[in-house]
Protein backbone atom coordinates (compact mmCIF):
# COMPACT_ATOMS: atom_id res chain seq x y z
CA UNK A 1 0.00 0.00 0.00
CA UNK A 2 1.33 3.41 -0.98
CA UNK A 3 0.05 6.93 -0.36
CA UNK A 4 -1.13 8.97 -3.36
CA UNK A 5 -1.08 12.30 -1.59
CA UNK A 6 -2.84 13.15 1.66
CA UNK A 7 -6.25 11.78 0.67
CA UNK A 8 -5.66 8.62 -1.35
CA UNK A 9 -3.90 5.28 -1.14
CA UNK A 10 -2.84 2.94 -3.93
CA UNK A 11 -3.33 -0.77 -3.26
CA UNK A 12 -1.12 -2.98 -5.38
CA UNK A 13 -2.61 -6.42 -6.09
CA UNK A 14 -0.18 -7.72 -8.70
CA UNK A 15 3.14 -6.90 -10.29
CA UNK A 16 2.43 -7.53 -13.94
CA UNK A 17 -0.39 -6.84 -16.32
CA UNK A 18 -2.01 -10.26 -16.54
CA UNK A 19 -5.30 -11.99 -15.93
CA UNK A 20 -4.55 -12.66 -12.25
CA UNK A 21 -3.86 -9.00 -11.48
CA UNK A 22 -6.95 -8.05 -13.41
CA UNK A 23 -9.10 -10.52 -11.43
CA UNK A 24 -7.76 -9.22 -8.12
CA UNK A 25 -8.53 -5.66 -9.16
CA UNK A 26 -12.04 -6.76 -10.09
CA UNK A 27 -12.65 -8.54 -6.78
CA UNK A 28 -11.51 -5.46 -4.87
CA UNK A 29 -13.70 -3.16 -6.99
CA UNK A 30 -16.79 -5.32 -6.47
CA UNK A 31 -16.15 -5.06 -2.76
CA UNK A 32 -15.85 -1.27 -2.88
CA UNK A 33 -19.04 -1.12 -4.95
CA UNK A 34 -20.93 -2.32 -1.87
CA UNK A 35 -19.83 0.95 -0.22
CA UNK A 36 -18.42 -0.69 2.88
CA UNK A 37 -16.95 2.47 4.45
CA UNK A 38 -18.45 5.93 4.54
CA UNK A 39 -14.99 7.53 4.49
CA UNK A 40 -14.24 6.19 1.02
CA UNK A 41 -15.09 8.79 -1.63
CA UNK A 42 -14.34 6.72 -4.71
CA UNK A 43 -11.82 4.38 -6.27
CA UNK A 44 -9.88 4.10 -9.54
CA UNK A 45 -8.91 0.67 -10.82
CA UNK A 46 -5.88 0.18 -13.08
CA UNK A 47 -3.89 -2.78 -14.42
CA UNK A 48 -2.35 -3.93 -11.14
CA UNK A 49 -3.64 -1.36 -8.66
CA UNK A 50 -6.75 0.13 -7.12
CA UNK A 51 -6.49 3.68 -5.79
CA UNK A 52 -8.87 4.52 -2.96
CA UNK A 53 -9.72 8.19 -2.34
CA UNK A 54 -10.80 8.92 1.23
CA UNK A 55 -11.93 11.78 3.41
CA UNK A 56 -9.38 12.37 6.22
CA UNK A 57 -11.84 14.60 8.12
CA UNK A 58 -14.48 11.87 8.27
CA UNK A 59 -11.93 9.36 9.55
CA UNK A 60 -10.71 11.81 12.17
CA UNK A 61 -14.22 12.60 13.43
CA UNK A 62 -15.20 8.96 13.65
CA UNK A 63 -12.12 7.86 15.48
CA UNK A 64 -11.31 10.62 17.89
CA UNK A 65 -10.14 8.09 20.45
CA UNK A 66 -7.47 6.94 18.01
CA UNK A 67 -5.96 10.40 18.04
CA UNK A 68 -2.46 9.02 17.74
CA UNK A 69 -3.29 7.48 14.42
CA UNK A 70 -3.13 9.51 11.25
CA UNK A 71 -6.11 9.08 8.96
CA UNK A 72 -3.77 7.47 6.42
CA UNK A 73 -2.67 4.81 8.89
CA UNK A 74 -6.26 4.22 9.87
CA UNK A 75 -7.29 3.80 6.22
CA UNK A 76 -4.40 1.40 5.55
CA UNK A 77 -5.23 -0.73 8.57
CA UNK A 78 -8.87 -1.00 7.54
CA UNK A 79 -7.97 -1.81 3.94
CA UNK A 80 -5.34 -4.36 4.96
CA UNK A 81 -7.96 -6.23 6.99
CA UNK A 82 -10.16 -6.33 3.91
CA UNK A 83 -7.35 -7.68 1.73
CA UNK A 84 -6.87 -10.53 4.16
CA UNK A 85 -10.59 -11.35 4.20
CA UNK A 86 -11.22 -11.11 0.47
CA UNK A 87 -10.43 -14.24 -1.48
CA UNK A 88 -8.07 -12.78 -4.04
CA UNK A 89 -6.88 -15.00 -6.88
CA UNK A 90 -10.35 -16.53 -7.28
CA UNK A 91 -11.67 -16.80 -10.82
CA UNK A 92 -15.07 -15.94 -12.27
CA UNK A 93 -16.43 -16.10 -15.81
CA UNK A 94 -15.89 -12.88 -17.78
CA UNK A 95 -18.69 -11.05 -19.56
CA UNK A 96 -18.38 -10.99 -23.35
CA UNK A 97 -19.34 -7.68 -25.00
CA UNK A 98 -19.87 -7.61 -28.75
CA UNK A 99 -18.79 -4.45 -30.54
CA UNK A 100 -19.91 -4.21 -34.20
CA UNK A 101 -17.30 -2.47 -36.36
CA UNK A 102 -17.52 -1.18 -39.90
CA UNK A 103 -13.93 -1.61 -41.10
CA UNK A 104 -12.13 0.51 -43.72
CA UNK A 105 -13.52 3.13 -46.09
CA UNK A 106 -14.24 6.59 -44.79
CA UNK A 107 -14.75 5.24 -41.29
CA UNK A 108 -11.33 3.57 -41.19
CA UNK A 109 -9.06 5.63 -43.47
CA UNK A 110 -5.80 4.11 -42.18
CA UNK A 111 -6.64 0.44 -42.76
CA UNK A 112 -4.61 0.43 -46.00
CA UNK A 113 -1.60 1.86 -44.23
CA UNK A 114 -1.89 -0.79 -41.50
CA UNK A 115 -2.11 -3.46 -44.22
CA UNK A 116 0.88 -2.25 -46.24
CA UNK A 117 2.96 -1.62 -43.10
CA UNK A 118 2.46 -5.26 -42.15
CA UNK A 119 2.65 -6.63 -45.71
CA UNK A 120 -0.89 -8.05 -45.70
CA UNK A 121 -4.23 -7.16 -47.32
CA UNK A 122 -6.90 -4.95 -45.76
CA UNK A 123 -9.18 -7.99 -45.61
CA UNK A 124 -6.53 -9.75 -43.52
CA UNK A 125 -6.28 -6.74 -41.19
CA UNK A 126 -10.03 -6.95 -40.66
CA UNK A 127 -9.95 -10.73 -40.13
CA UNK A 128 -7.06 -10.62 -37.68
CA UNK A 129 -8.52 -7.67 -35.76
CA UNK A 130 -12.01 -9.15 -35.49
CA UNK A 131 -10.81 -12.62 -34.49
CA UNK A 132 -8.65 -11.48 -31.60
CA UNK A 133 -9.22 -12.57 -28.00
CA UNK A 134 -9.47 -9.26 -26.17
CA UNK A 135 -9.53 -8.42 -22.50
CA UNK A 136 -10.37 -5.01 -21.03
CA UNK A 137 -7.60 -4.37 -18.51
CA UNK A 138 -8.88 -1.04 -17.30
CA UNK A 139 -11.04 1.99 -18.11
CA UNK A 140 -9.31 5.34 -18.11
CA UNK A 141 -7.73 8.17 -20.08
CA UNK A 142 -11.13 9.29 -21.41
CA UNK A 143 -14.66 8.53 -20.21
CA UNK A 144 -15.38 4.88 -20.96
CA UNK A 145 -12.08 4.38 -22.84
CA UNK A 146 -10.95 0.74 -22.56
CA UNK A 147 -7.30 -0.28 -22.37
CA UNK A 148 -7.53 -3.50 -24.37
CA UNK A 149 -4.98 -6.28 -24.31
CA UNK A 150 -4.67 -9.17 -26.74
CA UNK A 151 -4.20 -7.66 -30.19
CA UNK A 152 -2.13 -9.71 -32.64
CA UNK A 153 1.38 -8.42 -33.42
CA UNK A 154 0.59 -9.11 -37.09
CA UNK A 155 -1.36 -5.84 -37.32
CA UNK A 156 0.70 -3.75 -34.87
CA UNK A 157 1.45 -0.34 -36.42
CA UNK A 158 3.17 2.72 -34.96
CA UNK A 159 1.17 5.88 -34.29
CA UNK A 160 0.92 8.50 -37.03
CA UNK A 161 3.80 10.96 -37.05
CA UNK A 162 1.43 13.90 -36.87
CA UNK A 163 -1.74 13.40 -34.85
CA UNK A 164 -5.21 14.20 -36.21
CA UNK A 165 -6.95 17.06 -34.45
CA UNK A 166 -10.27 15.28 -34.32
CA UNK A 167 -11.05 11.61 -34.12
CA UNK A 168 -14.81 10.96 -34.08
CA UNK A 169 -16.45 9.06 -31.23
CA UNK A 170 -16.68 5.33 -31.92
CA UNK A 171 -13.48 5.16 -33.95
CA UNK A 172 -11.53 1.92 -33.65
CA UNK A 173 -7.80 2.41 -33.87
CA UNK A 174 -4.40 0.83 -33.53
CA UNK A 175 -1.41 2.39 -31.79
CA UNK A 176 1.65 0.19 -31.63
CA UNK A 177 0.56 -3.13 -30.14
CA UNK A 178 -2.66 -1.75 -28.70
CA UNK A 179 -6.14 -1.44 -30.07
CA UNK A 180 -8.84 0.81 -28.68
CA UNK A 181 -12.15 2.51 -29.27
CA UNK A 182 -12.64 6.25 -28.78
CA UNK A 183 -15.72 7.00 -26.62
CA UNK A 184 -15.69 10.78 -27.29
CA UNK A 185 -14.28 12.98 -30.02
CA UNK A 186 -10.65 13.72 -29.24
CA UNK A 187 -7.36 14.51 -30.98
CA UNK A 188 -4.98 11.59 -31.42
CA UNK A 189 -2.30 9.83 -33.40
CA UNK A 190 -3.87 6.39 -33.70
CA UNK A 191 -4.21 4.51 -37.00
CA UNK A 192 -7.93 4.47 -37.67
CA UNK A 193 -9.23 1.17 -39.05
CA UNK A 194 -12.99 1.37 -38.50
CA UNK A 195 -15.84 2.71 -36.46
CA UNK A 196 -18.57 1.30 -34.22
CA UNK A 197 -22.08 2.76 -34.11
CA UNK A 198 -22.55 1.82 -30.47
CA UNK A 199 -21.75 4.20 -27.66
CA UNK A 200 -19.08 3.43 -25.08
CA UNK A 201 -19.72 6.54 -22.97
CA UNK A 202 -23.30 6.80 -21.67
CA UNK A 203 -23.47 10.02 -19.62
CA UNK A 204 -27.14 9.58 -18.76
CA UNK A 205 -26.86 6.03 -17.42
CA UNK A 206 -26.20 5.08 -13.81
CA UNK A 207 -23.19 3.13 -15.14
CA UNK A 208 -21.85 5.56 -17.71
CA UNK A 209 -19.33 3.17 -19.26
CA UNK A 210 -20.43 0.33 -21.56
CA UNK A 211 -17.31 -1.65 -20.69
CA UNK A 212 -15.63 -2.49 -17.43
CA UNK A 213 -12.32 -4.02 -16.54
CA UNK A 214 -12.47 -7.80 -16.90
CA UNK A 215 -14.83 -7.79 -19.89
CA UNK A 216 -13.91 -9.78 -22.97
CA UNK A 217 -14.49 -7.99 -26.26
CA UNK A 218 -15.57 -9.48 -29.55
CA UNK A 219 -15.30 -7.17 -32.55
CA UNK A 220 -17.84 -8.16 -35.24
CA UNK A 221 -17.41 -6.82 -38.79
CA UNK A 222 -20.52 -5.12 -40.19
CA UNK A 223 -21.32 -3.48 -43.53
CA UNK A 224 -21.67 0.22 -44.13
CA UNK A 225 -25.47 -0.20 -44.41
CA UNK A 226 -25.71 -2.06 -41.12
CA UNK A 227 -23.55 0.63 -39.54
CA UNK A 228 -26.00 3.31 -40.63
CA UNK A 229 -28.99 1.29 -39.41
CA UNK A 230 -27.46 0.78 -36.00
CA UNK A 231 -26.40 4.41 -35.81
CA UNK A 232 -29.98 5.53 -36.51
CA UNK A 233 -31.36 3.16 -33.90
CA UNK A 234 -29.02 4.94 -31.46
Amino acid at each position, binding site marked *: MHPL*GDNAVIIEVGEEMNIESQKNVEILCSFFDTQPFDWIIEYIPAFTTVAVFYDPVKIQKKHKSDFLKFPYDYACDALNKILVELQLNETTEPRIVEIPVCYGGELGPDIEHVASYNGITTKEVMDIHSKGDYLVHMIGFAPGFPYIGGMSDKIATPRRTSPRLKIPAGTVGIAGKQTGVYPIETPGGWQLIGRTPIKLFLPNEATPSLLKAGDKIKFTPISNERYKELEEEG
Partner: protein
Amino acid sequence: MISLTKPGLLTSVQDLGRYGFQKYGVITSGVMDQLAHRTSNLLVGNEENEATIELTLLGPVIDFEEDKLISICGGNLSPSINGEPVRLWRPILVKEGSQLRFGQCISGCRAYLAIAGGIGVPNVMDSKSTYLRAGLGGFKGRALNVGDKLETKPINDVSARMIDELSKCSGDENFAEADWSVASDLFPSYEKIPSIRVMKGRQYHLFSKESQDTFFSQPFEITPQSDRMGYRLKGPSLSLEEASEMLSEAVNFGTIQVPSDGNPIVLLADRQTTGGYPKIGQIATVDLPLMAQLKPGDLVRFVEVSHEEAQHLYLEREMKIQQLMQGILLKLR
Protein backbone atom coordinates in the same frame (compact mmCIF):
# COMPACT_ATOMS: atom_id res chain seq x y z
CA MET B 1 -30.86 36.47 -13.52
CA ILE B 2 -27.44 37.65 -14.69
CA SER B 3 -26.26 37.93 -18.28
CA LEU B 4 -22.84 38.03 -19.89
CA THR B 5 -22.02 41.00 -22.09
CA LYS B 6 -18.43 39.83 -22.53
CA PRO B 7 -17.34 36.25 -21.89
CA GLY B 8 -13.79 36.73 -20.54
CA LEU B 9 -10.91 34.39 -21.37
CA LEU B 10 -12.26 31.17 -19.86
CA THR B 11 -15.35 31.53 -17.72
CA SER B 12 -17.10 28.35 -16.60
CA VAL B 13 -19.54 27.04 -14.03
CA GLN B 14 -17.83 24.73 -11.53
CA ASP B 15 -18.40 23.15 -8.15
CA LEU B 16 -16.10 20.96 -6.04
CA GLY B 17 -16.08 18.28 -8.72
CA ARG B 18 -17.67 15.10 -9.95
CA TYR B 19 -16.85 12.16 -7.72
CA GLY B 20 -17.67 8.48 -7.99
CA PHE B 21 -17.23 8.20 -11.75
CA GLN B 22 -13.46 8.22 -12.11
CA LYS B 23 -13.59 4.43 -12.22
CA TYR B 24 -15.36 4.87 -15.57
CA GLY B 25 -12.72 7.29 -16.82
CA VAL B 26 -14.92 10.33 -16.14
CA ILE B 27 -12.67 13.08 -14.80
CA THR B 28 -13.63 15.09 -11.71
CA SER B 29 -13.45 18.56 -13.31
CA GLY B 30 -14.44 21.17 -10.71
CA VAL B 31 -12.81 24.36 -9.50
CA MET B 32 -9.03 24.83 -9.67
CA ASP B 33 -8.88 26.75 -6.36
CA GLN B 34 -11.15 24.95 -3.91
CA LEU B 35 -10.37 27.29 -1.02
CA ALA B 36 -11.44 30.43 -2.87
CA HIS B 37 -14.51 28.67 -4.23
CA ARG B 38 -15.64 27.35 -0.85
CA THR B 39 -15.02 30.69 0.84
CA SER B 40 -16.95 32.62 -1.80
CA ASN B 41 -19.93 30.34 -1.27
CA LEU B 42 -19.82 30.61 2.53
CA LEU B 43 -19.68 34.41 2.29
CA VAL B 44 -23.08 34.53 0.57
CA GLY B 45 -24.68 31.91 2.83
CA ASN B 46 -24.40 29.01 0.34
CA GLU B 47 -23.33 25.46 1.00
CA GLU B 48 -19.66 25.25 0.09
CA ASN B 49 -20.30 22.92 -2.84
CA GLU B 50 -22.76 25.21 -4.69
CA ALA B 51 -21.77 26.02 -8.26
CA THR B 52 -19.78 29.24 -8.68
CA ILE B 53 -18.37 30.89 -11.78
CA GLU B 54 -14.64 30.42 -12.31
CA LEU B 55 -12.97 33.38 -14.07
CA THR B 56 -9.54 33.17 -15.65
CA LEU B 57 -7.06 36.06 -16.11
CA LEU B 58 -9.45 38.22 -18.14
CA GLY B 59 -12.79 38.39 -16.40
CA PRO B 60 -16.20 38.77 -18.08
CA VAL B 61 -18.64 41.68 -18.03
CA ILE B 62 -21.80 40.69 -16.21
CA ASP B 63 -25.13 42.56 -16.08
CA PHE B 64 -27.37 42.06 -13.07
CA GLU B 65 -31.04 42.00 -13.97
CA GLU B 66 -32.05 41.57 -10.33
CA ASP B 67 -30.59 42.39 -6.90
CA LYS B 68 -28.04 39.70 -6.01
CA LEU B 69 -25.83 38.93 -3.04
CA ILE B 70 -22.39 38.00 -4.37
CA SER B 71 -18.80 37.53 -3.27
CA ILE B 72 -15.59 37.33 -5.26
CA CYS B 73 -12.64 35.34 -3.90
CA GLY B 74 -9.29 34.16 -5.21
CA GLY B 75 -7.01 36.09 -7.54
CA ASN B 76 -7.44 39.85 -7.82
CA LEU B 77 -8.75 40.54 -11.33
CA SER B 78 -9.67 44.15 -10.39
CA PRO B 79 -13.43 43.78 -10.06
CA SER B 80 -15.57 46.92 -10.27
CA ILE B 81 -19.28 47.64 -10.21
CA ASN B 82 -20.43 50.51 -12.43
CA GLY B 83 -16.85 51.74 -12.47
CA GLU B 84 -16.26 51.64 -8.72
CA PRO B 85 -13.70 49.12 -7.45
CA VAL B 86 -15.03 46.43 -5.11
CA ARG B 87 -13.05 44.33 -2.65
CA LEU B 88 -12.50 40.59 -2.53
CA TRP B 89 -13.26 38.07 0.23
CA ARG B 90 -16.47 39.73 1.49
CA PRO B 91 -20.22 39.74 0.76
CA ILE B 92 -21.46 42.41 -1.66
CA LEU B 93 -25.07 43.28 -2.40
CA VAL B 94 -25.39 44.22 -6.08
CA LYS B 95 -28.47 46.16 -7.18
CA GLU B 96 -30.59 45.47 -10.23
CA GLY B 97 -29.26 47.15 -13.36
CA SER B 98 -25.64 47.21 -12.19
CA GLN B 99 -22.71 45.97 -14.23
CA LEU B 100 -19.79 43.96 -12.86
CA ARG B 101 -16.54 44.23 -14.77
CA PHE B 102 -13.03 42.98 -14.31
CA GLY B 103 -9.77 44.68 -15.24
CA GLN B 104 -6.10 44.02 -14.81
CA CYS B 105 -4.95 40.82 -13.18
CA ILE B 106 -3.10 42.06 -10.10
CA SER B 107 -2.56 38.81 -8.23
CA GLY B 108 -3.26 35.12 -8.86
CA CYS B 109 -5.06 34.23 -12.07
CA ARG B 110 -8.47 32.82 -11.15
CA ALA B 111 -11.35 34.38 -9.28
CA TYR B 112 -14.58 32.79 -8.09
CA LEU B 113 -17.90 34.57 -8.27
CA ALA B 114 -20.48 33.11 -5.90
CA ILE B 115 -24.09 34.24 -5.96
CA ALA B 116 -26.52 33.59 -3.10
CA GLY B 117 -28.59 30.52 -3.92
CA GLY B 118 -25.94 29.15 -6.26
CA ILE B 119 -25.86 29.07 -10.06
CA GLY B 120 -28.94 27.27 -11.34
CA VAL B 121 -27.65 24.57 -13.66
CA PRO B 122 -28.70 20.90 -13.62
CA ASN B 123 -26.74 18.20 -11.86
CA VAL B 124 -25.07 15.86 -14.32
CA MET B 125 -23.59 12.78 -12.64
CA ASP B 126 -24.06 14.39 -9.22
CA SER B 127 -22.17 17.56 -10.09
CA LYS B 128 -22.65 20.98 -11.66
CA SER B 129 -19.06 21.19 -12.88
CA THR B 130 -18.38 21.78 -16.56
CA TYR B 131 -16.49 18.93 -18.22
CA LEU B 132 -15.30 20.99 -21.15
CA ARG B 133 -13.87 18.21 -23.30
CA ALA B 134 -16.85 15.90 -23.04
CA GLY B 135 -19.26 18.83 -23.35
CA LEU B 136 -21.30 17.95 -20.28
CA GLY B 137 -22.30 19.51 -16.99
CA GLY B 138 -22.16 23.18 -16.03
CA PHE B 139 -23.94 25.56 -18.41
CA LYS B 140 -24.69 23.55 -21.58
CA GLY B 141 -21.43 21.66 -21.16
CA ARG B 142 -19.31 24.58 -22.28
CA ALA B 143 -17.50 27.74 -21.23
CA LEU B 144 -19.75 30.79 -20.88
CA ASN B 145 -20.23 33.02 -23.90
CA VAL B 146 -21.66 36.39 -24.86
CA GLY B 147 -25.40 36.61 -24.27
CA ASP B 148 -25.57 33.65 -21.87
CA LYS B 149 -28.16 34.21 -19.16
CA LEU B 150 -27.75 32.38 -15.88
CA GLU B 151 -30.45 31.79 -13.31
CA THR B 152 -29.75 31.37 -9.63
CA LYS B 153 -31.57 29.08 -7.25
CA PRO B 154 -33.77 30.34 -4.37
CA ILE B 155 -31.80 31.74 -1.44
CA ASN B 156 -31.79 30.36 2.11
CA ASP B 157 -32.35 32.17 5.46
CA VAL B 158 -28.70 32.96 5.98
CA SER B 159 -28.44 34.71 2.61
CA ALA B 160 -31.73 36.53 3.26
CA ARG B 161 -30.41 37.88 6.56
CA MET B 162 -27.19 39.03 4.91
CA ILE B 163 -29.18 40.85 2.25
CA ASP B 164 -31.23 42.57 4.98
CA GLU B 165 -28.08 43.71 6.76
CA LEU B 166 -26.48 45.06 3.60
CA SER B 167 -29.70 46.72 2.37
CA LYS B 168 -29.70 48.87 5.50
CA CYS B 169 -26.42 50.51 4.55
CA SER B 170 -26.72 50.57 0.76
CA GLY B 171 -28.98 53.63 0.40
CA ASP B 172 -29.14 54.72 -3.22
CA GLU B 173 -25.78 53.16 -4.14
CA ASN B 174 -25.51 50.50 -6.84
CA PHE B 175 -23.97 48.11 -4.39
CA ALA B 176 -23.07 47.65 -0.73
CA GLU B 177 -19.97 45.86 0.54
CA ALA B 178 -19.87 44.27 3.97
CA ASP B 179 -17.53 46.10 6.35
CA TRP B 180 -15.92 42.78 7.30
CA SER B 181 -14.05 40.15 5.33
CA VAL B 182 -12.41 36.76 5.76
CA ALA B 183 -9.46 36.84 8.19
CA SER B 184 -6.26 37.11 6.21
CA ASP B 185 -4.73 34.03 7.81
CA LEU B 186 -7.18 31.84 5.92
CA PHE B 187 -6.64 32.95 2.36
CA PRO B 188 -3.17 32.69 0.88
CA SER B 189 -1.02 35.62 -0.12
CA TYR B 190 -0.06 35.11 -3.72
CA GLU B 191 3.70 35.49 -3.56
CA LYS B 192 6.07 36.00 -6.48
CA ILE B 193 7.79 32.64 -6.14
CA PRO B 194 5.65 30.56 -3.82
CA SER B 195 7.05 27.58 -1.97
CA ILE B 196 4.69 24.70 -2.55
CA ARG B 197 4.83 21.78 -0.14
CA VAL B 198 5.22 18.44 -1.87
CA MET B 199 5.28 14.84 -0.69
CA LYS B 200 7.59 12.38 -2.40
CA GLY B 201 5.75 10.56 -5.17
CA ARG B 202 5.42 6.82 -5.58
CA GLN B 203 8.29 6.65 -8.09
CA TYR B 204 10.48 9.33 -6.44
CA HIS B 205 13.10 6.72 -5.57
CA LEU B 206 13.51 5.80 -9.26
CA PHE B 207 14.82 9.27 -10.13
CA SER B 208 18.55 9.96 -10.19
CA LYS B 209 20.03 11.44 -7.02
CA GLU B 210 20.73 14.62 -8.94
CA SER B 211 17.13 14.92 -10.15
CA GLN B 212 15.83 14.30 -6.63
CA ASP B 213 17.98 17.12 -5.24
CA THR B 214 17.20 19.47 -8.12
CA PHE B 215 13.48 18.91 -7.75
CA PHE B 216 13.48 20.14 -4.16
CA SER B 217 15.95 23.00 -4.64
CA GLN B 218 15.59 24.67 -8.04
CA PRO B 219 12.71 26.88 -9.19
CA PHE B 220 10.49 25.78 -12.09
CA GLU B 221 8.60 28.01 -14.50
CA ILE B 222 4.95 27.61 -15.55
CA THR B 223 4.93 27.42 -19.37
CA PRO B 224 2.18 28.69 -21.70
CA GLN B 225 1.23 25.05 -22.40
CA SER B 226 -0.65 25.04 -19.12
CA ASP B 227 -4.38 24.79 -18.58
CA ARG B 228 -7.03 23.38 -16.25
CA MET B 229 -5.80 19.87 -17.04
CA GLY B 230 -2.24 20.48 -15.96
CA TYR B 231 0.69 22.85 -15.76
CA ARG B 232 3.71 21.99 -17.85
CA LEU B 233 6.82 23.21 -16.09
CA LYS B 234 10.19 24.23 -17.43
CA GLY B 235 13.41 24.04 -15.47
CA PRO B 236 16.28 21.67 -14.89
CA SER B 237 15.59 18.39 -16.66
CA LEU B 238 14.61 15.47 -14.43
CA SER B 239 15.43 11.89 -15.28
CA LEU B 240 15.15 8.37 -13.95
CA GLU B 241 18.25 6.54 -12.73
CA GLU B 242 17.54 3.99 -15.45
CA ALA B 243 14.80 4.10 -18.04
CA SER B 244 11.85 1.93 -17.10
CA GLU B 245 8.31 1.50 -18.34
CA MET B 246 5.56 1.65 -15.76
CA LEU B 247 1.94 0.58 -15.96
CA SER B 248 -0.72 3.27 -15.92
CA GLU B 249 -2.32 3.85 -12.55
CA ALA B 250 -4.48 6.42 -10.79
CA VAL B 251 -3.31 10.02 -10.44
CA ASN B 252 -4.57 12.72 -8.09
CA PHE B 253 -5.15 16.48 -7.98
CA GLY B 254 -1.61 17.84 -7.62
CA THR B 255 0.27 14.77 -8.84
CA ILE B 256 3.61 15.79 -10.39
CA GLN B 257 4.60 13.41 -13.16
CA VAL B 258 7.66 13.47 -15.38
CA PRO B 259 7.44 12.31 -19.02
CA SER B 260 10.61 11.18 -20.78
CA ASP B 261 11.42 14.71 -21.99
CA GLY B 262 12.33 15.53 -18.37
CA ASN B 263 9.89 18.41 -17.87
CA PRO B 264 7.48 17.89 -14.98
CA ILE B 265 3.71 18.23 -15.38
CA VAL B 266 1.46 19.14 -12.44
CA LEU B 267 -1.96 17.52 -12.84
CA LEU B 268 -4.89 19.75 -11.88
CA ALA B 269 -8.70 19.89 -11.92
CA ASP B 270 -9.25 18.54 -15.46
CA ARG B 271 -6.58 15.83 -15.15
CA GLN B 272 -7.18 12.44 -16.69
CA THR B 273 -8.03 9.69 -14.20
CA THR B 274 -4.91 7.60 -14.79
CA GLY B 275 -1.39 8.17 -16.03
CA GLY B 276 1.64 6.17 -17.00
CA TYR B 277 4.48 8.58 -16.27
CA PRO B 278 6.58 8.27 -13.12
CA LYS B 279 5.33 10.44 -10.28
CA ILE B 280 8.09 12.39 -8.60
CA GLY B 281 5.85 14.23 -6.17
CA GLN B 282 2.40 15.04 -4.91
CA ILE B 283 1.39 18.54 -3.82
CA ALA B 284 -0.07 18.79 -0.32
CA THR B 285 -3.81 19.49 -0.59
CA VAL B 286 -3.47 22.68 1.47
CA ASP B 287 -1.11 24.18 -1.13
CA LEU B 288 -3.18 23.29 -4.21
CA PRO B 289 -5.02 26.65 -4.06
CA LEU B 290 -1.66 28.44 -4.31
CA MET B 291 -0.56 26.31 -7.24
CA ALA B 292 -3.87 26.82 -9.07
CA GLN B 293 -3.40 30.60 -8.96
CA LEU B 294 -0.06 30.53 -10.83
CA LYS B 295 -0.01 31.63 -14.45
CA PRO B 296 2.39 31.11 -17.36
CA GLY B 297 5.71 32.83 -16.65
CA ASP B 298 5.39 32.48 -12.87
CA LEU B 299 8.03 30.57 -10.93
CA VAL B 300 7.46 27.98 -8.24
CA ARG B 301 9.65 26.15 -5.75
CA PHE B 302 8.90 22.74 -4.26
CA VAL B 303 9.75 22.02 -0.65
CA GLU B 304 9.46 18.59 0.87
CA VAL B 305 6.78 17.82 3.40
CA SER B 306 6.16 14.47 5.01
CA HIS B 307 2.98 12.67 4.27
CA GLU B 308 1.84 12.92 7.89
CA GLU B 309 2.58 16.62 8.07
CA ALA B 310 0.55 17.22 4.88
CA GLN B 311 -2.40 15.40 6.37
CA HIS B 312 -2.04 17.30 9.61
CA LEU B 313 -2.03 20.63 7.72
CA TYR B 314 -5.12 19.52 5.85
CA LEU B 315 -7.06 18.73 9.04
CA GLU B 316 -6.01 22.09 10.45
CA ARG B 317 -7.19 23.91 7.33
CA GLU B 318 -10.56 22.16 7.48
CA MET B 319 -10.95 23.26 11.09
CA LYS B 320 -10.32 26.87 10.08
CA ILE B 321 -13.01 26.64 7.41
CA GLN B 322 -15.41 25.29 10.03
CA GLN B 323 -14.55 28.29 12.20
CA LEU B 324 -15.15 30.63 9.27
CA MET B 325 -18.60 29.12 8.81
CA GLN B 326 -19.44 29.64 12.47
CA GLY B 327 -17.98 33.15 12.36
CA ILE B 328 -20.25 34.14 9.50
CA LEU B 329 -23.30 32.85 11.34
CA LEU B 330 -22.27 34.81 14.45
CA LYS B 331 -22.09 38.00 12.38
CA LEU B 332 -25.76 37.59 11.55
CA ARG B 333 -27.04 37.12 15.07
